[in-house]
């Protein structure tokens, strides 16, 4: 017997701000979080803009100063978002049976910035000076470990590494653990913070990033004819999921339910999506089948919508293949137009936005969609948000490497 899975708590730290409501206000107000880079001097890089978590970000509310220096920035941001989600859930940890509580967290490149800084120390000062916290700050499974330590959770615990689909995969796996009865509750989501010379220049070498340095707020323009790549961003999104029974027993506030998870691979190319969109299409179909509904019940898709030439075309094609003539009735938007692309954290950030769309009846717009690419001819909710009451909504996440993840949510 499959159990229903409810979202009962959410936490967000993005370039739009800290906290779910602050993010939602910025998002529905149509504000971009993309600005000139301040975290390092980008003068040698082709791209000099990013979505940085604003300097007002204050982890001290949740993390002791002395702990902070032992955490990579993605761990700091992730821990704060997890604390927000737990606080919002109203659940008091540690639980009576801690082995029923899971922590599944995604990140694409984890402590890359720490590795980058550590390598400088190695070259300049030698191996003896390597900071002892290098490995714990670098590896991706430490954040789920830290969250478990903070709240005393001893159930299944792992990091999920799946590039830009990491946290969507994490949420999907957590959903399955609860649905199957292996866990009663999970903290899940993702965190990413790699805005540094290393990552910016590496993505520039792939020709993946926008170089619209003079107009940062206009740089992320999914589905627009003049898009020129994605904008790298930092961020974390964390959710508490629980079995409906567990949530109801304690009178928890339920934001939405997760009802479907589809995961596939393109088996096609290291960085390009399959131009036929077959894998992406199948991920969406699987999520819909998982929910046991007809495709036309889905009314909104929070698109992967990266603002790269290939993603936006291929995703459009895949949506058309999945939904047929109903594709044109869907509301679609890419919130990356405002948040930029937080890689492994993007799926969780967008899962939260999708849940908020269900809960609040508002579809965020796709900022900067001035003149749509002729190959992108669906309803992407250009520029401004619209009010639409939606029962089922989907969030897509696709990865370099060919991984496709679709999550399906239902209004409670």
């Amino acid at each position, binding site marked *: 017997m499959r159990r229903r899975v409810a979202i009962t708590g959410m936490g967000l730290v993005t370039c739009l701000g800290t906290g779910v409501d602050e993010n939602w206000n910025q998002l529905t107000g149509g504000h971009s979080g993309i600005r000139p880079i301040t975290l390092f001097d980008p003068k040698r890089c082709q791209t000099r803009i990013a979505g940085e978590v604003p300097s007002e970000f204050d982890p001290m509310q949740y993390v002791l100063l002395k702990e902070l*220096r032992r955490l990579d920035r993605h761990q700091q941001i992730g821990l704060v978002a997890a604390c927000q989600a737990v606080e919002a859930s109203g659940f008091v940890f540690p639980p009576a049976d801690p082995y029923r509580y899971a922590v599944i967290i995604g990140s694409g490149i984890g402590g890359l910035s720490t590795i980058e800084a550590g390598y400088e120390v190695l070259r300049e000062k030698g191996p003896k000076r*390597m900071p*002892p916290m290098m490995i714990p700050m670098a590896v991706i499974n430490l954040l789920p470990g830290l969250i478990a330590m903070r709240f005393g959770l001893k159930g299944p615990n792992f990091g999920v590494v799946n590039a830009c689909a990491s946290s969507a995969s994490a949420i999907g796996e957590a959903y399955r653990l609860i649905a199957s009865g292996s866990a009663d509750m999970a903290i899940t989501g993702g965190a990413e913070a790699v805005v540094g010379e290393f990552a910016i220049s590496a993505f520039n070498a792939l020709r993946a990033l926008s170089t619209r340095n003079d107009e940062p707020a206009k740089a992320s323009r999914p589905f627009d004819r003049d898009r020129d790549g994605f904008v790298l961003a930092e961020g974390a999104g964390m959710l508490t999921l629980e079995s409906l029974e567990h949530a109801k027993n304690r009178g928890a506030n339920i934001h939405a339910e997760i009802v479907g998870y589809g995961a596939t691979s393109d088996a096609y190319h290291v960085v390009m999506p399959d131009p036929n969109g077959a894998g992406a299409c199948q991920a969406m179909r699987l999520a819909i089948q998982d929910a046991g509904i007809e495709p036309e019940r889905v009314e909104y898709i929070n698109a992967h919508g990266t603002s790269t030439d290939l993603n936006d075309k291929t995703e459009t094609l895949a949506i058309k293949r999945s939904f047929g003539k109903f594709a044109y009735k869907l509301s679609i938007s890419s919130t990356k137009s405002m948040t930029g692309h937080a890689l492994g954290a993007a799926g969780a950030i967008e899962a939260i936005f999708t849940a908020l769309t269900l809960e609040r009846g508002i579809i965020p717009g796709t900022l900067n969609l001035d003149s749509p690419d002729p190959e992108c001819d669906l309803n992407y909710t250009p520029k401004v948000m619209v009010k639409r009451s939606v029962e089922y909504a989907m969030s897509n996440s696709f990865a370099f490497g060919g991984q496709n993840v679709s999550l399906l949510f239902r209004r409670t």
Partner: protein
Amino acid sequence: MDDIEKKIVDLVAEVLVDVNKENIRLDSKIVEDLGAESLDIYDMVALLEDEFGMEISDEEVEKIRTVQDVADFIKASQKKS
């Protein structure tokens, strides 16, 4: 406390999450009194090496018990160089 000793207390306090700086005395035993674990020791050694521009071998670390021992070691090696 002299400047070196004060600096050492600062670094020890920076590493040890649960210890108030006011409770760190020169005769405090770093492991027994202040509760440092192995990772804390490695972290302190790295900070001390960076601050005082010197190397502290694992054998030397083994001999150190108190904050005073750290200060004595650093002063002695500063005299040598």
